[in-house]
């Protein structure tokens, strides 16, 4: 039986979310835009899901724009605000996910001036450096709430307050945070927020952008006028309904889940510290309760991932979207970690179904892998 410890890449669909989705995957269902009874029934189900997602982050249903996933929602946030003739600057943190980096680079190619906010050794955006870059000419700031690799949390509330003084819009990618910690759009004081269903045990292929009611954003996918004209295309009905249920469950069970994951992770970290050559990245930062990113001295992260895979344990060397690229993590590099140590990174991300026994199995496997390596004297990597 495989042990899955890669929940930040994708979390398994909750059986209860699946249960509400299944009826919508079978039988006859209308297009939510149709006015006959089938269509209206679909529309009503969509409205319920919208309210469930809205409640998770404390907004009104009208603020939720469903998309084909978190990446699309991040794209919509950046490109939707920065539309038309390039005019102004865009600030993004240096440790954003590719879903933000990608559109930021695309904006830069169009002529927008994109600047990257530096982070400290624990992966936190430096407020002083941020302040220096802020002025009324900044069109948008994008800082993620929780980092997908290290799990480090940003003080988005404070950063948003800083930006607000200059009248600057703030977007936060809350894909990894939602469902793992309490997320409150209003309390954070942000204007745009990205969510993804499959990172909170909902289905893949559906996400949402939460939009400040005062904001206009230019749609990126047009045609049909769905989602108040902000995102065209027939809605992914079953997916959205599953997202709604997953959001409802995440909200109801948040405390239990956090407590459990934190206990598992703390236990795991205690064990990891006993294995020679292992370090924990962003150890001193406030982090997600489920994420621990380690470096295994002298070993390639990718190689460790494959060794664990052979033992039936699924982890990743960083972002799933970057696996196989062989490039050291831009997140760790931004934190000042040297290239060799960054290449040794292995990310362990827990889910609600993981057990203490699985933590023990992982620790045993890592101990074996690192001692095997030491005993054979095999050098996977040139020391810096």
């Amino acid at each position, binding site marked *: 039986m495989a042990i899955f410890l890669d929940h930040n890449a994708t979390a398994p669909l909750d059986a209860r979310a699946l249960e509400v989705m299944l009826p919508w*995957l079978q039988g006859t269902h209308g297009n939510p*835009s149709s006015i006959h009874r089938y269509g209206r029934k679909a529309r009503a189900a969509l409205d319920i899901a919208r309210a469930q997602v809205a409640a998770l982050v404390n907004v009104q249903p009208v603020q939720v724009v469903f998309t084909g996933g978190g990446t699309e929602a991040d794209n919509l946030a950046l490109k939707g605000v920065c539309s038309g003739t390039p005019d102004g600057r865009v600030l993004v943190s240096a440790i954003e996910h590719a879903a933000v980096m990608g559109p930021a680079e695309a904006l830069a190619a169009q002529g927008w001036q994109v600047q990257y906010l530096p982070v400290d050794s624990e992966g936190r955006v430096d407020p002083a450096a941020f302040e220096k870059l802020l002025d009324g000419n900044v069109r948008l700031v994008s800082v993620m709430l929780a980092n997908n690799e290290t799990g480090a949390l940003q003080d988005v509330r404070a950063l948003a307050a800083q930006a607000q003084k200059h009248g600057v819009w703030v977007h936060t990618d809350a894909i990894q945070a939602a469902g793992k910690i309490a997320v409150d759009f209003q309390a954070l004081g942000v204007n745009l927020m990205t969510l993804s269903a499959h990172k909170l045990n909902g289905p893949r292929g559906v996400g949402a952008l939460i939009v400040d009611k005062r904001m206009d954003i230019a749609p990126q996918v047009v045609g*049909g006028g769905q989602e108040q004209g902000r995102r065209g295309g027939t809605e992914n009905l079953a997916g959205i309904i599953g997202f709604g249920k997953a959001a409802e469950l995440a909200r109801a069970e948040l405390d239990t889940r956090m407590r459990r994951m934190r206990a598992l992770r703390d236990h795991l970290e205690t064990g990891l510290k006993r294995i020679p050559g292992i370090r924990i990245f962003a150890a001193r930062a406030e982090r997600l309760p489920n994420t621990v990113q380690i470096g295994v001295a002298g070993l390639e992260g990718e190689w460790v991932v494959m060794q664990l895979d052979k033992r039936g344990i*699924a982890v990743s060397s960083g972002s799933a979207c970057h696996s196989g690229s062989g490039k050291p993590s831009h997140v760790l590099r931004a934190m000042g970690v040297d290239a060799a140590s960054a290449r040794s990174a292995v990310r362990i991300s827990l889910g609600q179904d993981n057990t203490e026994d699985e933590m023990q199995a992982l620790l045993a496997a890592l101990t074996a892998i690192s001692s095997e390596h030491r005993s054979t004297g095999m050098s996977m990597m040139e020391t810096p």
Partner: protein
Amino acid sequence: MNDKIIYLDYAATTPVDPRVAEKMAGCLTCEGMFANPASAHAPGRAARGMVERARAQVAKLVNAEPVEIIFTSGATESDNLAIKGVAHFYRDKGRHIITSRIEHKAVLDTCKQLEHEGFEITRLKPDQDGLIRPEMVRQSLRPDSVLVSIMHVNNEIGTVNDIAAIGSITREHGVFFHVDAAQSAGKIPIDLKALDVDLMSFSGHKVYGPKGIGALYVCRTPRVHLDPLIHGGGHESGLRSGTLATHQIVGMGEAYHLACEHLTEEMPRISALRVQLWQALHAAIPQALLNGHPTQRVCGILSVSFPGIEGESLLFSCQGLAVSSGSACTSADREPSFVLRALGRDDQLAGASIRFSLGRFTTAGEVDAAVRIVSEEYRRLRELAPAL
């Protein structure tokens, strides 16, 4: 009144075929299959295998290479990606785009966006049969034309454009050709190796697959380049970033596989039902008018205008029927159909039109019942009306 509603709105969306639902459910519940196809570990590789199998299934239905199929969140995104992708990548080559007035909103709205960006759009008016003639395309080509986007089958009236002939013209002139095939894939044989088509949009939920998944065919030889619409992560050959929804893709793959198997059997059967529907309707209501070319049409779509009655009352009278008054995506605003207006129908006729769309699970009994409901309601409303 019987609570069972007759579903004749297959062009808006089709029911998910039970075999597709089964495959999808298997994918969602099966241990391990939930993994991210981009992940390096064993569950990730297994998911990737299923995605590639589905890609091959979609490619097979339209005789394309699997590598030419890009998965998207639906035909609307595919249309956006194709049109903006070409327009932006080749912006230095030219800024003139040719499309038609009867395209789906996904194409029309995308072109409108490009118009705001400084592109010039020619919108061809269909002939009275609702067809875009290849010669119209030839005549509107200019030296700065970069793209022609013409739908294969119109979603409201079901007419079939001659994309083979249009493709020869665009290829001859070195202009890219995009075809929205959301209404034709699985209903008409499509052979992309024989067609001079550079880009083709597909939908999952119009072919008995799930909603929220679609695909774009991007021709490799000759190669067409696109600017991506969604950046980050570099999935789908860098053309469409974002985590792939394995169950959705597997569902679309299975749906296209089934379409491939059933196409030759379904086309004549559904055609016969549509002919039965029109003949019975026309016999009951001789004033009824058929919209679109009488024969050059897809098997399952029938659009009829009813003189002398008001559209909203007609539609709401037929509550035992799930049909459309226009394209589902626009019917909520209850504006007279722009497609029917383009065919020269006046506001009354365009408003008092019904699109019946038949599909895999339609029976002759349902067709009879539909004719009965519509003709009874037509008579009732006519009797209620004063001399006009």
